[in-house]
């Protein structure tokens, strides 16, 4: 029972760090998916006195994907009452050219600024409309959300490290005596600390399996995917191979670090 409790406390500490890590990963994926979604629906409008060539504009920034000409017909239709065909043709020629500029990803305000400056270097471009007010608000909201989650994950990480170091002291007391006795009979360090490392590895495995089961369950529930669909994104909540490997690696690294610190701080009782 006592041994089970000792296992449980490290497993719980490891689980909390794995949960906060995976939560952070999910949030990060959601934000990236949302940014991608925004990028698809977002474009800059470029106003130019002359026709622009797409290949020249794409060269201005690696973020630019395409340049699409906007037809002036809609504007002219509203003005054409009482204007003859000849005048409309002249008006068409004298109107500036409008273009829609598509970007690879949803840009940050500084990226928009860079693109605008680069485009305005072209003397025929007279205006670049980025709709910055709406854009800035959305972007800042996303950043705020990500920062809040990062702070939360960091706080959980700190609390877990405190839990793990407390656990280390308990393990130290528990294993020191056995390691000392084994040392008195000439056991090399690897042998006297073998039990400790075995326990650390078992606990890391148990924590990973539990976290795996929980996240498999979460990812299989329809509620989660419905929530993501409602905001128009599709997110992989739990990538079985990749996420399990990351969780297992972290749990293993933490518990082996814990065991190594105990072995390094071990002093022979005489």
């Amino acid at each position, binding site marked *: 029972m006592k041994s089970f409790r000792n296992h449980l406390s490290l497993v719980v500490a490891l689980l909390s760090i794995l949960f906060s890590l995976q939560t952070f990963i999910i949030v990060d994926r959601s934000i990236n998916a949302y940014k991608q979604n925004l990028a698809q629906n977002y474009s800059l409008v470029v106003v130019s006195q002359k026709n622009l060539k797409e290949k020249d504009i794409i060269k201005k920034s690696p973020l630019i994907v395409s340049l699409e000409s906007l037809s002036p017909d809609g504007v002219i239709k509203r003005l054409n009452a009482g204007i003859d065909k000849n005048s409309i043709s002249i008006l068409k020629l004298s109107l500036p050219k409008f273009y829609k500029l598509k970007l690879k990803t949803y840009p940050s305000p500084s990226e928009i600024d860079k693109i605008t400056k680069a485009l305005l270097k072209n003397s025929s471009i007279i205006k670049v409309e980025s709709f910055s007010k709406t854009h800035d608000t959305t972007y800042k909201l996303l950043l705020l959300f990500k920062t809040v989650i990062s702070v939360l994950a960091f706080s959980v990480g700190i609390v877990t490290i405190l839990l793990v170091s407390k656990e280390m002291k308990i393990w130290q007391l528990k294993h020191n005596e056995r390691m000392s*006795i084994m040392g008195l009979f*000439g056991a*090399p360090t690897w042998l006297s600390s073998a039990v400790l490392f075995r326990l650390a590895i078992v606990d890391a495995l148990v924590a990973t399996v539990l976290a795996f089961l929980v996240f498999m369950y979460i990812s299989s529930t329809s509620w989660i995917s419905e929530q993501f669909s409602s905001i128009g994104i599709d997110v992989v909540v739990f990538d079985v191979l990749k996420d399990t490997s990351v969780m297992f690696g972290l749990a293993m690294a933490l518990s082996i670090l814990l065991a190594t610190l105990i072995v390094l701080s071990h002093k022979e009782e005489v």
Partner: protein
Amino acid sequence: MDKVIVAENLSLSYSKDETIINKVNFSIDSGSFVFITGASGSGKSTLLKSLYGALKPQEGSLIVAGVELKGVNKSKLNLLRKHTGIVFQDYKLVKEWTVEKNISLPLIIGGYDKTRTQEQVEKLLKHIRLKHQSGKYPKELSGGEQQRVAMARALSHNPILILADEPTGNLDDYSSDLIWNLLVGANTDLDSTVIVVTHHIPENMNIDYKHFHIEYGSIHEVV
């Protein structure tokens, strides 16, 4: 006769301010049975600790089974300890291990195979008359039984040197007799050198032994 222990100008201390053993010279023949006596706090246990390398010499030289313990490295010390059996007054058994596993500890460390380990443990369990308790844990045994297990552990790997610190200090007569018989048996049958730190030498010791006495930081042989 070969010397298993040679101490020259040996000084031992736990701190720089207080020297427990002060520049002593002595040697112990291989295969001998030795008692070290002295008043409480005289430094008997301190001297014994130095013999298994738990306390390094502050000054002088201490050679045990050919290994100089001043500045000895961990691997050489481990090698020496693999050929040494130690018995403590407080038994020092591994609490979470059974009697059987505690006895087999030096055999596991020495890399003995399973069959040989099993045979040796069973033989020793018979000797200490605890065969029926082999699966029990130390806390389920009396003090005398725990010391018998510790004794069996110290003998399991047929060590060349057995060091015992007050091995019968807290024991009943039955367990004390068993312990002394095992120590004498190890000395006569296995030719192990036995060094026992004690307050009193048993009266019925029917064996040739040497007696060293520690007083005021120095050691002298009692003839």
